[in-house]
Structure formats: C-alpha cells, structure tokens
C-alpha cells in the first residue's frame, strides 16, 4: 500500500499525470473511489480486498477526462476493460497509465502493449466458484430458466444503476432513451424489465470483461453477472474470442472470420 502511495505521489509531483484514481475507505466496510489530484493527498489511498470497483468506468466520464492524464489503480478486470475500451476506439493511449499493486510493489503500465502483455500473463478464466454457478444455471431447462429470470426481473426497478456502474455502458444516448420510436418501454413492468435487461445483456455480449460491478450496483440483488458470464463463455466457445485481451481487436459478433468455429450453424 505504501508503494502505491509513493508511486502516486511521484506521478503527481512530476506531473506525469494530473489525477490518480484509486480507492479510499468508504462507508459500511466498502471501498470508494478516490480522485487524488495533489501529491499531498496520496496518503489517503488504500488497496485491499474490499477494493472491488472497476475504476475504468470513470475514464469514460467527460468531467474526469477534463482533469487530464489519469493514473488508474487497476485490478485484473480493470486492465481488460481498458483494452476493450481501446478496441472500441474510446481511449487514447496517452490519456492514461495503469497502476497494478502487487506483492512486490506497484507495476506501472503506460502503454497498451504493456497492458496486453500483463493481461495475457494473468488468469482470465472464470473462478471455480463462478464456473460451478454457471454450470448450475446452464443445467436448468429453458422453461426453468425463463421462470428464474422472470422472477429476478420482476424486482427490477429500472433505476439503471447497472448501466451507471458499467464501464462499457458509455453510450451518450442509451437505447432506452430513444423515444422516437420507443422500442424499449420505460415503465418497470414485466415486459419492459425483460426487454431492458435482455437488451443490455446482448449489448454486452462479446464486450463484457466480467468485473461484476453491475451485480454489486443492483439495489435489489439481481445476479446480472450470470447473464453476462454466460454470454461471455458462449462467445468464447463460439468465436474463440475473449473480450479485453487486445487494444486492437475486431468485435467477435460483428466480424466474420473464415476460421470461426461456427459449430452452431453447421
């Protein structure tokens, strides 16, 4: 933690970056995001197992972008998010620097290729617990699955907290806000909730980097990560592509490659 504070201090003092986005203790035992803009403030930074939020979401906010070059305290999913955003033409390489706290100090990754190398070396697979939960879900019959989600979505309030937390929900105009015509109904009724959540899951298919922030943000505890993980694993098995592995990558769902496995068509 001290190494991280030291690094932040140095980056700000040398004006290498204008802001360090990291974690500070928040309420209820959770960590919150901290924007360190003065070297003196770097001591407030913490990094421990409570620091779960994917801070890459802030990179897409215009008010954060205006601050200047940012150093981002990055967890494994954060690094993948950075690469995914880059692949979607949303990030300039010069606009950020990733700080990866580890056992022996802080790693500072200033280029996309450095991030790519780091991501390639880390374990990007789902954890054993996640896998077993997904298998349980996959084992459900179609009717059972529909019932499960209908029950889950019936509690959705359409507060859009999942969207606000998601670093890949960076659209300035979301589909639900298109009202000429209004394809997705606004009211929080069963059909509207289903359409909204399915639409969001589809928009994240092949893009989601599995940070889990949507589920943590949901005030009624809908396990949205299940939907996203399922789609991620389907994209991986169908198109042999994992999101957020490279800063220049074609989107698996919009790109035809002659060597796509495509087992589902043949």
């Amino acid at each position, binding site marked *: 933690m001290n190494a991280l504070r030291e690094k932040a201090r140095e980056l700000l003092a040398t004006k290498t970056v204008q802001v360090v986005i990291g974690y500070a203790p928040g309420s209820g035992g959770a960590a919150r995001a901290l924007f360190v803009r003065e070297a003196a403030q770097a001591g407030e930074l913490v990094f421990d197992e409570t620091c779960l939020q994917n801070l890459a979401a802030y990179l897409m906010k215009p008010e954060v972008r205006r601050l200047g070059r940012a150093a981002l305290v990055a967890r494994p999913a954060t690094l993948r998010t950075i690469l995914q955003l880059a692949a979607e033409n949303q990030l300039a390489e010069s606009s950020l620097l990733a700080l990866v706290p580890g056992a022996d100090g802080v790693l500072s990754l200033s280029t996309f290729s450095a991030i790519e190398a780091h991501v390639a070396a880390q374990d990007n697979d789902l954890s054993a617990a996640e896998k077993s939960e997904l298998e349980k879900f996959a084992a459900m019959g179609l009717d059972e699955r529909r019932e499960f989600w209908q029950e889950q979505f019936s509690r959705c309030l359409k507060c859009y907290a999942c969207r606000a937390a998601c670093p890949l929900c960076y*659209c300035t105009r979301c*589909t639900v806000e298109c009202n000429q015509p209004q394809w997705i109904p606004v009211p929080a009724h069963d059909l509207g909730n289903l359409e909204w959540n399915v639409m969001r899951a589809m928009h994240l298919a092949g893009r989601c980097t599995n940070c889990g922030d949507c589920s943590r943000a949901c005030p009624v505890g809908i396990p949205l990560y299940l939907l996203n993980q399922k789609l991620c694993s389907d994209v991986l098995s169908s198109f042999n592509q994992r999101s957020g592995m490279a800063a220049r990558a074609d989107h698996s769902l919009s790109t035809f490659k002659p060597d796509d496995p495509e087992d589902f068509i043949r």
Partner: protein
Amino acid sequence: MARIGVFICHCGENISATVDVKQVAAAAARIPGVAHSVEYKYMCSDPGQQLVKDAIREKGLTGVVVAACSPRMHEPTFRRACAETGLNPFLCEMANIREHCSWVHEKGDATTEKAIDIVRTLVAKVKKNKALQPIQVPVTKVALVIGGGIAGIQASLDIANAGHRVILVEREPSIGGHMSQLSETFPTLDCSQCILTPRMVEVAQHPNITLYSYAELESLDGFIGNFKARIRRKARSLDETLCTGCGLCTQKCPTRKIPGEFDAGLGLRPAIYVPFPQAVPNKPVIDREHCTYYRTGKCRLCEKICPTQAIRFDQLDEIVEVEVGAVVVATGFDIKHGDFFPEYGYGKYPDVIDGLQFERLASASGPTLGEIRRPSDGKVPETVVFVACAGSRDPAKGIEYCSKICCMYTAKHAMLYRHKVHGGKPYVFYMDIRAGGKMYEEFVRRAMEEDGVQYVRGRISRVFERDGKLVVKGADTLLGARPMEIEADLVVLATAAVAQPGAEELAQKLHVSYDAHRFFSEAHPKLRPVETNTAGIFLAGACQAPKDIPESVAQASGAAAKVAALFSRSELVREPLIAVVDRQPPPVYSSCVGCFLCQSACPYQAIEKEEIRGRDGQLIKTVARVNPGLCQGCGTCVAFCRTKSIDIQGFSHEQVHAEVLALLNRGERDA
C-alpha cells in the same frame, strides 16, 4: 394531415380468387388517414396506373399504397407512375398481398383479414415516409476481368470492342483456360485450339486490354463504378520486357521430369516452361518449387543461356493497384480428381483416367501427339470404357447436380477414339443422356449409330485389375439389370465438374455469395443470370455452374453487355435506400459514440470514420459515416448500433415501428 391512397389489385384472379378485394378496399377506406381506396383488375396495366395518377392529382394524395404483388415485380412501375404526377416516388409503397397472402393461403375470411392487415401496416409506414432523392455515383470506365479462359477472353474482347479499357487477370502463366487443353469440340468436332488461339492473340494485341498473366486478385474494395483492386503479379523470375520467347531456356533446363499441368499430369515439362506452344503471353515462368537453383542454390543454366539476359532469380511478387468500375468473374471450374473414386481405382491404376486427361491423349499437342495410347505402357487400347456421371448426380458423393458437359464430351471421346483406333471397342456407361442443345442429340446419335459406340444404360460398381486388364463390373439396366463385366485397356471417367478450389476465398474477397457447391450465385436464377447480388460484379462461364463452351461464351457476352451498359453513362443513379448515421446540431453533433463495431459488421466496407471538428480545427468527436455509394441498404449496421444512431432511409426505425404497432393495435379496431 396524411392523405393516403390505397389501390388494391385483383391481379386477374391471382389475388381476387382467395382474397375478398372489395372488403379489403372497404376496410382500407376506414383506416385513419386514408383518403382514397379502390380496387381494380390489373393495377399494373395502363388504365390501372392511370387510376393511381388521377387520384394523386384529384385528391391531392400525400402517399400511395399499392396492394398487389411483390415490390420486386412492380414497385418501379408504380414509383414511376407517382413520379409522373410530381409525387416523390419514395412516397409510394407496395403491400404484397399476392406472394405473402393470396398465393399461400386458402380462400376465406382469415385470408382477407391478413390482406387487410398487410395493407394496414403499409399505410402506417407510408405515413412516415419521407421524400428521398436518388444518389448519383461516378463511374470509372475500366473493367476488371478475373480469369482468362474462354469466358474471360470473350468478356474482355466484347468490353474492349465496345471502347472500354479492360484489365484481364489470369492465374496461370498463359490465358486459354480449360478450352486450350481440349482436343476437339462438340458437336462440330472442330479443333479447340484452332478456334481459341485467334481469340487469345486478339486479347494480346488489343489496345484496350491490359493482360496480367500469372497474377491473382489480392483484394477488392469499393463499390459499383468505383472499385479498387489490388493484383498480385507473381514473380515469373524473368524480365518480360527483355524476354523474346525464343524458348532456349526451356530447351536447356536440366530439370525436365515434372508432370505438366497443361497435359493434366500425363506429359512432362521442364522447370522453366511455357505451358503450351500457343501460350499468350509466350513468356516462360520458373517453377520455383522444382527449379534446381531454388532448391540447391546451383545451376542458373537458363541465366547463362538466355540471349537477352532476361532471367531474374531475385524477382519478387509485385502488387499492382488499379481502379475499375466493374468486375467480371470468369474463374471457371475444376474437375474431381484423386481419391474421390476409390471404387473405380482412379489414382491407383494408371489406365483409369479422367476426361481432361483423355482430351490431352486425343490432342495433337498432347503427350502422345494425338495418338490414343494408354498411360501405363503406351499401348493402343483395344477396349475403352467411358463412365459418365462419375460423381455427378450422386447424393451419396455429395454432388446432387448434373455436370452438364459430360454426356456430350463422352460421346465426343468415344467418337474420337473410334476415328483414331479403327478396330477399337468403345463402351459408354450412362445414367441418362442429356443432349439438350443445338445439334447435340444428333451428335450423340451419330456416336451410337454411325461410329458404333456401345451405349450401356447402367452404372459401374467397381473397376479392378486382372491379368493386365481393367475389369469393369456394371449392369445393363435396360436388359433387366443383367450384370456385365468388360475387360478394358483404358477406363475414362467423366468426373464431376466442381468449383475451383479457391472459389470460396475469392467470393469472400469479392463479397459475392456462393452456393453449397461453391459455385458463385447469380442475382436471380432466371431474370438476372449474369449479375451477382453485389452491384457491379458480374459472372461469366463455369464459375457460376457447369457450362459448355457456347453457354460460357453467351454468358460472357451477356456480362460484357451489362458492363457496357454500366459504362454508357459517366454517372450512375442509385436508389437512396441506404443507411445514414445520426447528425444533430451542436453540442451533440451525433448520438454515435464512435465505437465502430458497425464497421466490421458492414459487408460492403461502407462505414468510414468522420472527424467532426470545430471552427478552430479542434477535434470534437470521431463518428461513423456511411458512404452512400458503397451502402447497399442491408441494415446490418442498424441492428448492430447500440445507440440506434443509424437508420435506413425508407426503412427507418420510425417506419418499421409504425408497421409493428399497426399490427399490434388491430385489436382496438375490432373492439
């Protein structure tokens, strides 16, 4: 307020026999916004069109719905009729109550109800239609012809003779294709090379034709009238401008035992070679795979012997970029080889050969100088069995289609054999004889009746060797499936005609569709046989389906006529039914977030990056832009855009949504 006119066509009885058109007209009249609703026997007839025109003028219609056949049939008719009155043609829509309703349902109330629903959706749509203006695209009057077989040669000559420049690309060292390998041609038995080589020479000499032989298409971008092609000119390993084609190098090359492609593997050629004496261009090429110098680093004999010092061992492939307005694909076909017929011993016994190999045996320029001698020992065969439909029309082999040329060339082969070997006994095993074509049936009958070819209706089960003879086991199905066994000296298989091995890859480069057998797909099987579904790309010859020479030539001339028609104007008018990306006033500029996932989804490379800059030149936003010349209006990008920032003109979100609502809300009307 919308004033929509609805015009319901009986289509003779095609619609009115199952749909109560009067009821449809009455129901349409009750739809809000409909100012005029009539039915008529033939709306596409002159008086029918007049009904539309008069109503537009008299009732001041703001939109027209013609409920009749598919828009693929008469949409242009009615749009032109509307335009004549001054109504924007894109304010006219077709409600397809024939293909989508009357033809596919029984007569009854439900069918009429459906017709009303279809009309209702189109009325809802046309209310949201906007006046659109056609798009004008410039045309580069240069054609690219891919493939220098007879189809490519014919297409090139026709386009060149129409006064346009042609770039002809041929993969092999010489143009000529399969036709140059043939001995004689049916049904006239004139020598193939004698009729082909004058055309080849004409190509070489034509001032409008640029020939790139030993070259392949690397990539094709762009759109009708404005393609950019990259052509890879493979290294011949010699300077073509210096080479005089004297042939000394090919005579002196020490590596001489390479099975020649031109002789279908029956003859041998050196490592530096010209495929055949009349090759165009008559310049050799070094086969680097077999050349001693490339394999061992020693030799260079050709370099020493060349009187003009034309050999270039270090030559690299060269990429040529050209701009063309149209493309004719004439890449031809291949025949099935190898272990596809284990039951016939093809590939196992040297005297079981394919039709193309027989052509070389019968050809004066072939390895036997035109004498029929079997490959194994050079003996003149006394009995020859010809097997038609080897692979073709055989679902078990995965080739359901008829290869079309085999019946005729097998008759020709048997005839040529009889002409050259007077005492010879030819047998033809066949399933059916398909000799549809001018003088074709007469040709086959001549083989049977005058030349004494024994035709046996039945299939061959097996070919095996016994005491130096090939035993052919089959059955004569016209004589009660009597089993037959013939001891033959030579077996000729009319193997199935199949697509070129690289056809799928080429189709993907060109963005044209292909069928399950990798033959390229025409835009319409009957009415648009030479066009592909990609505008500006045309088909000629056997790359589309197996074809004989007259058909290939006819299609090539057809494709050339299409190209000449395209080049007859310097600008091209296209329908404006294309995608557009949202643009708004500042400070939003566009709802596009510039993720460009649409870019890779677009099958036509129509999506570009546009940088929106302020007055000070500062970059504000990079957003997508659709190139109106390239876009084909397929809508893939629309489905892909998360922010719904792309719309198709004429099929906008608003229009489609209105159609869906019109269907969903039909209950309210019934209540």
